[in-house]
């Protein structure tokens, strides 16, 4: 399986080549990949059905406990099936939808890579591996949302989706590290067995917060729901795949996966059930204000994701069964409806449901598919959506906290969703025939195959829900409730959920009737809705830009001395702090000094200070010379004859060089204000003082044995030289000297080049004007 997933990435990279061979049939060729994976998964079903966990071990970075091991249990199996089956259908669908599109190969590359990332995500057993695939889905989905990259709205939506999910991803990474620390394992199948340890651990609360942030951003839970409807800028196959069946369910998958490890505490139950319920209502309510069919579906997806989160929060056996059924039902009908939306867009040229009407006569096959999927969305019998909704309402009645509030929210979401389903199905296909930008007709069978199959499955599983018993049982086992009795049925008798379903049918249809008037009212509310979390995101982004702008202006302003001051102050602050607190400021040194040594030091100081304050360049160079020769003298006095010779030579050359070149340079000018000079003096004194203190600290510390004793002892026997310093330079550390020679040679080449290629550089410059700038008179005063 690992080979297949990693090979899938290779296949993705080879799409441009395949496109050359197969042309517009490439999507069908690519669809073989997920299809064959689905077949393999089905062949593994007997193992899964028996309640076993299939562990495909594969090492990756053994030293860091990172493995590429895949774990397939019921939960992973269902997700992997959804990913591969819907993936294959979407690829088939995109053959028509993107037929002749210039960027078809690019689309196929990214969507195949996404598919493999998603598969890796749901199959990974190792937290690090899971995180890598998690981020890969974020990145590939960024590329898919921004597929129409010439459209600025698409680019903005892509970036928004990326920033929200990747921001949550960062929190998730922290959460995973904490999880691994608390559970002492990076392996999911081990972690889920240590639920009691994890729930009792001190790190439980922080790790739960981090993991939930990651899952909520990915699965578009309130208040991070806003990126999902914006992501509808993507081409419809992408929306059908990423934003209904797969990527947005990654967060839900993670929560379900970690349910046995982290679930069941008050924090988990309250957070998940409330956030989920609020997301449900927010999604269903915000859908009402839109007429764009994709936006309507996107908001109803938000509602679906909220339902799944809420069910995980409630966490009873019934709720987990409802989770599994609703997950499957939602993927089936939402995938179908998105593809229908794409067909409508493709055939009529508009996405606006109010601009369509009476299409059932022109597109009968599409109308049937839409009707079946829509009934499932509405939660009406005899479809799987109905089974899911009944189970959902039943489990809400078991909610351990705020049962009435959650029931109210769930009921509201139910009838609003019913209204959304009516809007999506009844508006375009029934009622008055309206003229659309393009004359519509049923699409080809290839395009209808995907939604048709998904809708048919919705109907089949709705009529015979018993077929799903083993699958749902396996999923629930994977979520840590192996004893749950799973007997799905369409008809549960007259009970409260049925009554609620009936009430929601009545209310939903009423809202559908009043929708046009309601929308007008919502338009008036629009400014209020715009103040939602998305405004917070925009403000955050704007603030980030202002902050980056400000700190760039402040720190990176182009003045070298500001960089220098900043660096030095940080140095003084950090090193000074460490010095003061580790060592104190009282050095333990004794001073023994002769008069002539003190005079030499005094000359050095005088020379350095004079070089700073002299107003004539020659005097400054002379002062530098005094300092340099005093240093040479110090070398003589303190047993370093070689240094003294070198220093004398270099000092002489330096003075000659400066005298030769400096007088072709401008005179000293006073360019800075007294305040600036004072500031520089303070910075300079602080740094100088730090150096002095550091050196005193070094001198008063204990000395380590010299490493040069070997060199002293072996200079003559091995190096055959009596001057130990010279032997070190040419023998013990000869490579250093070689490096030094390279540096000198490079400097010489640079100097030569700059002096020699004089005219060539000056080309195009007004030579006379330049000469006027150069100083001509001397400065021997």
């Amino acid at each position, binding site marked *: 399986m690992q080979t297949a997933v990693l090979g899938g990435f290779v296949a993705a990279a080879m799409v441009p080549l395949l496109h050359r061979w197969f042309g517009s049939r490439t999507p069908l060729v690519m669809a073989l990949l997920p299809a064959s994976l689905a077949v393999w998964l089905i062949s593994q079903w007997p193992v899964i059905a028996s309640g076993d966990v299939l562990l495909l071990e594969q090492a990756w970075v053994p030293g860091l406990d990172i493995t590429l091991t895949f774990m397939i249990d019921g939960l992973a199996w269902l997700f992997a099936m959804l990913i591969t089956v819907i993936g294959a259908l979407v690829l088939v669908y995109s053959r028509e939808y993107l037929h002749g599109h210039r960027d078809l190969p690019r689309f196929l590359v990214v969507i195949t890579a996404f598919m493999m990332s998603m598969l890796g995500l749901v199959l990974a057993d190792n937290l690090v591996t899971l995180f890598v695939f998690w981020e890969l889905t974020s990145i590939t989905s960024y590329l898919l949302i921004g597929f129409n990259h010439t459209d600025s709205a698409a680019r903005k939506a892509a970036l928004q989706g990326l920033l929200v999910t990747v921001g949550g991803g960062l929190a998730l990474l922290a959460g995973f590290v904490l999880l691994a620390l608390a559970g002492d394992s990076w392996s999911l199948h081990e972690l889920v067995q240590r639920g009691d340890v994890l729930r009792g651990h001190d790190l439980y609360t922080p790790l739960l917060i981090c993991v939930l942030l990651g899952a909520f951003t990915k699965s578009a839970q309130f208040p991070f729901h806003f990126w999902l409807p914006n992501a509808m800028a993507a081409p419809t196959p992408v929306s059908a795949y990423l934003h209904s069946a797969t990527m947005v369910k990654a967060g839900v998958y993670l929560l379900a996966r970690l349910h046995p490890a982290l679930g069941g505490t008050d924090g988990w139950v309250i957070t998940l059930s409330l956030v989920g319920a609020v997301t449900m209502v927010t999604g269903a309510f915000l859908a009402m204000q839109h007429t764009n069919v994709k936006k309507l579906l996107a908001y109803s997806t938000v509602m679906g994701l909220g339902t799944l989160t809420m069910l995980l929060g409630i966490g009873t056996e019934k709720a987990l069964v409802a989770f599994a059924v609703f997950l499957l039902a939602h993927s089936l009908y939402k995938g179908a409806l998105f593809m229908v939306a794409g067909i409508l867009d493709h055939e009529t040229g508009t996405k606006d449901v109010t601009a369509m009407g009476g299409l059932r006569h022109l597109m009968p096959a599409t109308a049937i598919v839409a009707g079946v999927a829509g009934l499932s969305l509405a939660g009406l019998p005899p479809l799987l959506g109905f089974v899911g909704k009944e189970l959902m309402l039943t489990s809400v009645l078991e909610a351990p906290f705020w049962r009435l509030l959650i029931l109210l929210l769930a009921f509201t979401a139910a009838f609003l969703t019913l209204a959304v389903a009516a809007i999506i199905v009844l508006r375009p296909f029934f009622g008055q025939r309206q003229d659309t930008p393009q004359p519509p007709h049923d699409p080809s069978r290839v395009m209808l195959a995907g939604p048709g199959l998904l809708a048919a499955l919705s109907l089949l599983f709705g009529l015979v829900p018993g077929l799903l018993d083993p699958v749902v049982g396996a999923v629930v086992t994977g979520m840590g409730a192996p004893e749950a009795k799973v007997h799905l049925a369409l008809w549960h008798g007259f009970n409260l959920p049925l009554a609620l379903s009936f009430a929601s049918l009545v209310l939903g249809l009423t809202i559908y009737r009043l929708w046009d008037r309601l929308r007008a009212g919502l338009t008036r509310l629009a400014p209020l809705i715009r103040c939602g979390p998305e405004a917070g995101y925009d403000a955050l982004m704007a603030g980030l830009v202002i902050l980056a702008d400000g700190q760039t202006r402040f720190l990176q302003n*182009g003045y070298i001395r500001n960089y220098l001051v900043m660096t030095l102050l940080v140095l003084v602050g950090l090193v000074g702090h460490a010095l003061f607190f580790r060592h104190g400021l009282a050095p333990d040194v004794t001073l023994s000094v002769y008069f002539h040594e003190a005079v030499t030091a005094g000359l050095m100081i005088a020379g350095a200070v004079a070089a700073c304050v002299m107003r004539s*360049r020659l005097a400054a160079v002379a002062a530098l010379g005094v300092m340099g020769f005093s240093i040479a003298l110090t070398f003589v006095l303190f047993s370093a004859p070689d240094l003294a010779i070198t220093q004398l030579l270099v000092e002489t050359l330096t003075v000659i060089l400066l005298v030769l070149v400096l007088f072709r340079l401008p005179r000293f000018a006073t*360019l800075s204000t007294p305040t600036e000079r004072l500031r520089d003096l303070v910075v300079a004194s602080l740094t100088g003082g730090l150096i002095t203190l550091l050196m*005193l600290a070094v001198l008063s510390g204990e000395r380590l044995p010299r490493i040069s004793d070997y060199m002293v002892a072996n200079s003559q026997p091995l190096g055959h030289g009596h001057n130990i310093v010279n032997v070190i330079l040419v023998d013990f550390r000869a490579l250093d000297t070689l490096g030094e020679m390279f540096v000198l040679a490079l400097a010489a080449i640079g100097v030569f080049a700059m002096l020699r290629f004089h005219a060539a550089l000056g080309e195009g410059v007004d030579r006379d004007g330049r000469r006027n700038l150069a100083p001509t008179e001397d400065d021997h005063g």
Partner: protein
Amino acid sequence: MEPLMAITIGILFAAAIYMMLRRSIVKLVIGLILLSNAANLLIFATAGMVRGAPPLVPKGMTAPETAVADPLPQALVLTAIVIAFGVLSFAVVLVRRAWEIVGADDLDQMKDTDT
């Protein structure tokens, strides 16, 4: 001697940094000279300063009879002096070319790349 050198070196560093913070490019070069000298002295002095015991092996012997000054810092400083000279000559010529072409003595006028 070392504590006195510590103070001297501190002053040398302060002078070097003060000059490097000036806007005039020529003063920047002077700051560079001061800085390399101060750094060399720092390495030399921190290793311990010994009077009258140069690291030499007397003729006809295989090792010095008495303890000698540490030769390794001396070797390092020797390399550093020469390299500092190489850097200095490069910097001086660079400053001269910059002055010829840009015609500005003020570093503040050179802060944009599109001059």
